Every structure is written in structure tokens, then in C-alpha cells.
């Protein structure tokens, strides 16, 4: 899917929707409406949006602890997501998952994941399922640079390659792993290097440049759809907020953050790119932001107005208790 003005505007809207959703979620956490951990994606929007722009509704996406952006970009309804963060019964997971487990199976968004690298094996498995069934669905797995050190990264990608599964492994290399700088705990700079161990293409792109992400993701996804196997796609990116709530951020300077925000912001860069091509007028820009803002406002209202799940809900959904062996 090559980029044109219309697609670009849609992607631009998606980036704003993510940005504003998260800034609002952050505020709501401050107000005590959102409990638990909140890992914000702000600054990394170009990755989720650039990749998901290629995906069909029936393609699979699996995420991380930092997956609001992945879910929104893949089309999860914002109201349900905000309600989930609030722990309300109208939430995507009926309030039982929260930020770290947002999922929308109707959109084949199989969920955020609280375990670093936890989605890599399962994404390989959805790829296996579609391959066995002979469909041309693609599975995309997002994970952070930290995940690349874990065994399941190694085992999962190896199997994806072995069976030439239609999976795109997208590493969001934001240079940090919780409160640690990547270079302190990693031995190779680029995660894409590791692709050689699995005999698959390893591609590294500027994750602030949604156009570059979009192009590289397109190739990887097409390759997967054609049945030629997985790609390891690394996007170099940056997160604006702390790792999660209450991060003292002693591991980086204010200046570093400001520098990325001022000079490498994916939304600003994309706006400039579009403006240059006359794909976006000032009015359109305004409208898009307003639309995003209104969606977020509506989502908060929805979440706010929703009830907590009844206490009995805590006991449901452990197993499917309706099912009978003789059925």
C-alpha cells in the first residue's frame, strides 16, 4: 500500500489519536481514575501507525506492555480502551485486563502483554495457524529492544524462519529498557543484526519517520503475505514519558528528551512531510486534531460514565464454564 495524501491523512489522524489518548490517560492517572501501570507510547507513534497502515482487519497484531498505540492503530475502539484503563465493565476486556492487557479479538488484536517478549512465540503461532489454514493473513508482533535479549525472542523467531511463517517481528528500539540505557546491557547496537542468526532479513529504520517505517513495513508485510517468511524490522525510536508512572528518569537528561521532542517528533516530521507535498492544509490539520481530541474527550466521558464490573465478574472467565464435553 503506497502512501498517498488520503492514506497519509488517515495515518496522521491515527498518530494524533494515539498521542492525545495517551496524554489524557496520563492525566487521568494523575486524577486517580486510572490505576496500575501505564506505559506510554508517546514519541513512538510512527512505528505502530506506519506498520498497521498495511494491515487488514483479519491480520493479527500482538503487543507489549506499551501497546495503546498498537491497538489504536489496528483499529481498537478508543472508548473501550479508555474504559479498560479505568477498569470499567465497558472496557475492551471488561475491566479485567487494564492497560497492560488491552485486547480486542474482534479486530484480531490479541493483546498487550505484561511479559517482555511474551508475544513473540504466540505471534509465531498465529502465523502458523494462518499458514496451516492457507489464508494470506499476516501476523505482526511488536516488542521492545529489551525483548531481544530474552530466550523466547530467539526460540520464536527461529521457528518463524524454520517454517517460513507470515510474521513480521517489529522491534521498537527506543534505547531504554525500563530505567536502563540499552547500551549498558546490550552487546549489539542494532537488534536487526540478530536476524542473521535466523536467516531472515533484518532491517533497521528511523522510527520517527513514519514514511520510512511505512515503506519498510510494507515490504516486510508483502513478503510475509507472499509466503516468503518473516522479517525482523527494527525501528529506532524514543519514548517521551518515563517508563511507567512515577519514573524519576535519572537515567537520561531533560535535554535529551527535549531534543527528541523538538527535533525528532514523528508527528511534526510527518506534518512537515505532508505540508511539503501539499497533502495537508492548515484547515485539515486543525480538523484532524479536533477529531482526535473529540474522540478522546468522548472516550473519557464514556469511561467515566461506565460502572465498575460487578464483583461476581472476578469469578467469571477463568474457564469457559458453558462448554460441555458431550457438546
Amino acid at each position, binding site marked *: 500500500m503506497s502512501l498517498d495524501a488520503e492514506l497519509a491523512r488517515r495515518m496522521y489522524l491515527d498518530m494524533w489519536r494515539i498521542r492525545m489518548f495517551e496524554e489524557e490517560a496520563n492525566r487521568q492517572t494523575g486524577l486517580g481514575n486510572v490505576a496500575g501501570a501505564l506505559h506510554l507510547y508517546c514519541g513512538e507513534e510512527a512505528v505502530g501507525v506506519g506498520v498497521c497502515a498495511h494491515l487488514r482487519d483479519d491480520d493479527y497484531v500482538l503487543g507489549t506492555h506499551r501497546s495503546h498505540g498498537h491497538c489504536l492503530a489496528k483499529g481498537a475502539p478508543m472508548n473501550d480502551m479508555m474504559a479498560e484503563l479505568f477498569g470499567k465493565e465497558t472496557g475492551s476486556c471488561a475491566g479485567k485486563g487494564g492497560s497492560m492487557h488491552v485486547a480486542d479479538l474482534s479486530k484480531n488484536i490479541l493483546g498487550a502483554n505484561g*511479559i517482555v517478549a511474551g508475544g513473540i512465540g504466540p505471534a509465531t503461532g498465529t502465523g502458523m495457524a494462518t499458514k496451516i489454514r492457507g489464508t494470506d493473513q499476516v501476523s505482526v508482533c511488536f516488542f521492545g529492544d529489551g525483548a531481544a535479549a530474552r530466550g523466547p525472542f530467539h526460540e520464536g523467531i527461529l521457528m518463524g524462519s*524454520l517454517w517460513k511463517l507470515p510474521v513480521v517481528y517489529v522491534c521498537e528500539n527506543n534505547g531504554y529498557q525500563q530505567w536502563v540505557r540499552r547500551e549498558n546491557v546490550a552487546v549489539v547496537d542494532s537488534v536487526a543484526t540478530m536476524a542473521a542468526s535466523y536467516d531472515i532479513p533484518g532491517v533497521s529504520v528511523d522510527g520517527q519517520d513514519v514514511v520510512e517505517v511505512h515503506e519498510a513495513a510494507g515490504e516486510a508485510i508483502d513478503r510475509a503475505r507472499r509466503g516468503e517468511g518473516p522479517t525482523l524490522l527494527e525501528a529506532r525510536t524514543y519514548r517521551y514519558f518515563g517508563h511507567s508512572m512515577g519514573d524519576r528518569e535519572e537515567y537520561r537528561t531533560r535535554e535529551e528528551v527535549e531534543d527528541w521532542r523538538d527535533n525528532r517528533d514523528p508527528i511534526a516530521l510527518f506534518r512537515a512531510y505532508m505540508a511539503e507535498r501539499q497533502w495537508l492544509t492548515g484547515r485539515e490539520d486543525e480538523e484532524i486534531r479536533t477529531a482526535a481530541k473529540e474522540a478522546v474527550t468522548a472516550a473519557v466521558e464514556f469511561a467515566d460514565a461506565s460502572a465498575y464490573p460487578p464483583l461476581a465478574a472476578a469469578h467469571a*472467565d477463568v474457564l469457559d464454564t458453558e462448554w460441555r464435553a458431550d457438546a
Partner: protein
Amino acid sequence: MSTLTIRDAIHDALHEEMERDESVFVIGEDVVAHGGPYTVTEGIAERFPDRIFETPIAEAGIVGVGVGAALAGMRPVVEIMYLDFITCAMDEVVNQAAKMRYMTGGQASVPIVIRLPCGLGRYIAAQHSQIMESWFMHVPGLQVVAPSTPKDAKGLFKTAVRSPDPVLFFEYKSIYTAEGEVPDGERLIPFGEAEVKREGEDATVVAVGPMVGKALEAGVTLEDDGYDIEVVDPRTLSPLDTETICASVRKTGRAVVCEEDSSFAGTGAEIAATIAENCFADLRAPVTRVGMPHVPMPFAPPLADSVVPQVASVVGAVRRVMA
């Protein structure tokens, strides 16, 4: 009726389920090459070549892939060569498979069956002889199946494959070749239904997996003592049919709980605690447990044989509660 071994019963059930449902597939180490070490998947590669996947040695990957395939609507039957290696995939079992339905508020279903050959077989020491059913009992969202006969193995396996939720299917190496009658045709055994394997009046022996056969043997010996024991086989450990177990204990007033695994914080602890809590008024002797002592499996055959509970252990325990 035909006479089958447990190994054959699982083998047949797997073939039948793969025939019935295209979404069932097999994944594991050496499952093509050899049908796994116990040849349970033998013949699958010939009959369903597109639905069997021989893997690298990578248990976390294997179970992870199974979870994903299940989430996408397939029904993976995963072989872990020995139970002991499930330690390499605990995150995938416990944090992924077990919790997906719950964390997604009921959206997700993970119909995965994980086959676990376990326990003492040949003498292969501490890293190849564990059982560990209680680990998985303790994890909400998992179902734990522990068949003791070919009939149960076949019926429970078919239920396992069709279940919309994850199943840990324990296959006790020591009884793979145990023979028994298996009814012809399709018999599904529901989870959570214990079976009284022998009726008796004097004491209830709740026995798990390979201890069922030993308990039945003990029953014969104990007749000479004048004791008529009832043997209850839970068949699934989670869900656990506490009703049948407790009904039996209420009748007999005495309970001996037997497992081949080590007792401390084991399967029998849950069963014994449940009996103690629910049958208090009817108990005429302390609920007694039989199991391995709290030691790893030693290699030397005489040592291994000495720590695994035998028929005599059951006999001794029953005599104690009858005394």
C-alpha cells in the same frame, strides 16, 4: 470393546480427533522422527503430513507457538518430551495460556493440549522423572488431567482436544503399557468427574494416576486383613471432583490419599485438605497421605524403587487408618 494400552489409547484418540477436526495439529520434538519417545504420535506424519510439526529443542517456543495458534482458532496438541522440560516453558503455560481468557475479559479462548510424559520410567534420575501436577492445579485457568486407565486416557484425551481451555495432560510413563478395555465408538469423559474404581466400605483410597493400579492391588491384599477399601480416581485434578471424593469418605469414614509424586505441597495435600475440611464430622481416622518423600529422584535403581510409593505403601497406610 477392545484391549489397548494407555499409549495406544492416546494414540488412537489423537488420530480420531485429527480425523474429525482439521484444526487439530501436533507440534513437538521428534514427533515425526519417532512419534516422540513413547511413539504416541506415530503414524500422524503419514496420515496428516501437513498437521504435524517437528521442532527445534525449544520448549518455550513450542508452547508459545501453540498458544498463538490456539488463540487463532487452531487446536494444537503439544508434546513436551518429558514433563521436566515444561520448566522451560512455564511462562507460556502460566502467564500466557492460562490467563488469556481472563485478562481479555472472556474474549480469548486457548484450546491447547500439552502432553506431559512424566514420572519414573526407566531409571533416568532427577531431571527426567518428575510429575508436578500440583504446580498446574494451583494455576487458575488450567485444567489438569491424570488418566490411570486406557479407557480414561482415551475419553479424557478427546475431551481435552475439544475443550476451549488449556489442558495439561499427564501421561505416566510407568503405566504407558498398562492394558485395559476400551469401549468402541466415541466416549467423551467430562472433566471434573471422579470414578469409583472399586467399591468398598471400610476406607477410601483416593489414588492419582499410577497409584490407582497400586491401590487396586492393595485392595486385594487388604481383603486378607478383612478390610474392604473403596478406590476413588479423581481422573482430573483440576477441576477436582470433591463431591465424589467426599461422598466416599463420608461413607467410609477413613481416607488415604495416594500420589506417585512427592507429598509435600503436592496433589495429595489439596485432596487431603479438602477431605479434612468437608468430611470432618464423618472422619474416624486422620486423613493420611502416601507419596514420595521430599527428595529428588535418585538414579540408582534400588534407591529409586525405594522412594516411589508402592503397593505396600498403600497397604501400610490403610492399615494405619484402620488401626
